[in-house]
């Protein structure tokens, strides 16, 4: 059942109906196996056109951060429990959450995002990593050159630096965006209301053939 999964679930937030639906979907993706491998994601046609597909799929298999396992690195395959774990990062907020819960909720979502950007998992998003992300993001637009993407990333990094650190002294070097900085950047914005998917719509599209 949902409740027994892991400390992530703050409350029974993924209903059994939703779990059933996701389970069906899981079976579809895994072709009735018990686990999913990376290749199974290839069978989702619409996902192909997604520019940051790589990072997203990667996030599903990331052992330490997202799957809450002890070891590091990438798992080869994930089971349904893991699948649910990742999905639960995207559940919407509930009306009856209190301040503390909301805050934790928010932090978790932001942490997920942070892990996606921080590809070498050292706790900092460096310029190069940021550049990668931006290049990938903008790769969908064929008219945007790589240099443009790079300069945008640079500009964004500078903005981040100025928000997080303010005026830097002459000898300071800005290493990268840490998670605290990341939180600071998102201070005014309601990520809780933006980063979720509606699980209520029960129509499954037969993506996998």
């Amino acid at each position: 059942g949902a409740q027994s999964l892991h400390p992530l679930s703050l409350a029974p937030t993924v209903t059994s109906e939703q779990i059933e639906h996701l389970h069906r979907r899981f079976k579809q993706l895994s072709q009735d196996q018990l686990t999913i491998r990376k290749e199974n994601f290839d069978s989702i046609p619409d996902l192909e056109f997604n520019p940051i597909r790589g990072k997203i799929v990667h996030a599903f298999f990331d052992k330490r951060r997202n799957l809450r396992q002890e070891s590091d690195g990438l798992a080869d395959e994930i089971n349904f429990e893991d699948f649910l774990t990742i999905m639960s990062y995207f559940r919407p907020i509930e009306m009856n959450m209190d301040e503390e819960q909301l805050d934790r909720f928010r932090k978790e979502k932001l942490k997920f995002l942070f892990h996606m950007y921080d590809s070498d998992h050292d706790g900092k998003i460096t310029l190069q990593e940021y550049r990668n992300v931006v290049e990938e993001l903008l790769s969908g637009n064929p008219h945007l050159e790589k240099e443009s993407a790079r300069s945008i990333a640079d500009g964004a990094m500078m903005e981040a630096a100025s928000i997080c650190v303010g005026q830097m002294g002459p000898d300071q070097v800005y290493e990268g965006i840490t998670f605290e900085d990341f939180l600071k950047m998102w201070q005014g914005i309601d990520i809780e209301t933006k980063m979720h998917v509606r699980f209520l719509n029960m129509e499954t599209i037969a993506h996998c053939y």
Partner: protein
Amino acid sequence: GQRSSESAKNSNQSFAIVSFKWDHVKEPYIIALWVLVASLAKIVFHLSHKVTRVVPESALLIVLGIVLGGIVWAADHIASFTLTPTVFFFYLLPPIVLDAGYFMPNRLFFGNLGTILLYAVIGTVWNAATTGLSLYGVYLTGIMGKLQSGLLEFLLFGSLIAAVDPVAVLAVFEEVHVNEVLFIIVFGESLLNDAVTVVLYNVFESFVAIGPTNVTGIECLKGIVSFFVVSLGGTLVGIFFAFLLSLVSRFTKHVRIIEPGFVFIISYLSYLTAEMLSLSAILAITFCGICCQKYVKANISEQSSTTVRYTMKMMASGAETIIFMFLGISAVNPDIWTWNTAFILLTLVFISVYRVIGVVLQTWILNRYRTVQLGIIDQVVMSYGGLRGAVAFALVALLDKDKVKDKNLFVSTTIIVVFFTVIFQGLTIKPLVQWLKVKKTEHREPKLNEKLHGRAFDHILSAIEDISGQIGHHYLRDKWSNFDRKFLRKILMRRSAQKSRDQILNVFHELNLKDAISYVAEGERRGSLAFIRSPSTDNMVNVDFSTPLPSTVESSVSYLLREKAGPVCLDMQALEQRRKSIRDTEDTLAHHTLQQYLYKPRQEHKHLYSRHEIMHSEDDKQDKEIFHRTMRKRLESFKSTKLGINHPKKLNKIHKRDRGQKRRNSSVIPNGNIPSENPVQDFTLKEKDLEFSESEENNDYETLHLGKGVDFLANVTQQNFTDNPAGIDNPVFSADDDQSIYMKFSPWLSSEDTVVPSQRARVQIPYSPNNFRRLTPFRLSNKSVDSFLLADGPEDRPRTFLPESTHM
């Protein structure tokens, strides 16, 4: 015509030198006078801040209208001016709705479309039905006395009083600033309920005309069908005209002056066409605005875009002012006044109560499907914000007195309802909002990071939707933007616009421009332009620096210099000689800044008045210049340790640009760039083709000195990499430039004729003020290895080729 008859009359008298031809100009004169009075009234209102903070403008205008109407009536005992439905529907309403549609935040609108539609359709029907039926019920009890209306008339009245009015909502909510979701729901509802209102009104009006006995089930069915036809038809008409407009705007490159006109004409045609086909005209013009905005804004020039914006706002604002004022004037018409206490009072009660009930019920249903729930406070604001306005009044004035016997009663009631909602509810909504602590809009500067992450979100969320196998919002939005990118853009957008039109890029561009311009403004504000103010140049320069400059873009020096007529003398030699003693090095530096950033302050303000052409201003190019430079500097300055420090930068030569050179239409960095992939390279002098991005219409800009000069990458050769792990030394941001450099290389003291920003001058960028976030947020090292000194020996390197000098 008139003149001939007049002259015939006066033929037996002498020639009248001057005659008073009032009748001749009466109509346009009166209209113009009223518009003037309304606008003057606005000025008067805004003189008193205290009043306008509390009382909404619309209320003040209504009161003014009543006063004026009273004056006119007292003088003439006739009510000569009323808000006729024709004038209202044909001339006053379209600008307001077009303005709403054109500036509609599409993403927000379509994101909440389900909610909006529910309130607009179901809510309005609910309001109409309950109000009409309740009034009829009460009538049957006899409290209202004797009226000549039956059920159908009451339903007719209910349908026209039920609709939330876009004009009133805009007028009141504009001053309240609730959060955007709430606003878009109420406002969207007020726009989209037009379809329902039109259908209900027409249906019941015809039912009243054909008589209650002839109303059969078929007629009712027809009514329901007509709802779908009217609403969908109106929308399609709007979309069709939006398509037309976008297509036309693609080809207006050579008729820039009348470009804005197309927007208005075609949108207006969509309104009239829908009206002609008895479809919902408001929906048509709304969707015309909504659908065309993206493509039109991409296609038309900056100036046209500004023109469109301001004209639209002006017309909408003007129309709104006139509407409210005339609402007041029309009230002063004793002929129409019929008082029926019960009716009026009950109407007020019913519309308020049923609105609340309707909102609560619908919200309860909606909250089961919405991800962002609407709380109690939102519901209160939504109920309270359901204002009725001029649309109801116009509709009631349209009624045929013979068919609807109680027309006067209806008119009076409508007037009172409108006044009540606009004045009373308008007055009290602000304190209510504050008391309830409604979440307000946060106006924040667009942040690049937000845009980026927003984009990342969209992708992540669509991916999750795909993976979990659901059709969700993001899936749909994704599909739409793919479709848009593949087909629509290619047809409707200009080729140049297609390439550069990426939201993130736009934000980036804007931010850079802002930074650059504020950079200059800041430098000037610090007093480094004192030399311009010297008495000897006062007669030459009309720039007034004595007024305190607000820190907005408009106060930038470039703006001032552009705006003031008269030549500005930046003749370096002349100034230098005159004030060598007084001037600081700092001034020199700042002046350099100006030199670099403000290529061509108007040498002479040539007034080329032409009705068919605007001389294309060079400001666009200057802006692009500034942008490129700042970008380059930023790239140079920001290197993280992980990147690897060891890349030498190359000093590029400057090329005289061929005209035949292919221009790449990228609006960001030109080709030359820092190769970060090759860690160690020797210092080489490489010649690069420098391409400059321009907009398409400047193909013949031969004398564009800007193009050549700026486009080089001022790179520094690094010779001591290994002992500098902390970052790249960058002369751009180092504070301690050797001052002697400037003395040595004052370019204006060279013997050459063409002095202007020499390569050296440009490269020696002065110390920049360090309170600019994006431009110079930090310095990585203050070691100034100014290898320009080292690299900069040779005169044999080709100089800059700026044909213009600063000699005026």
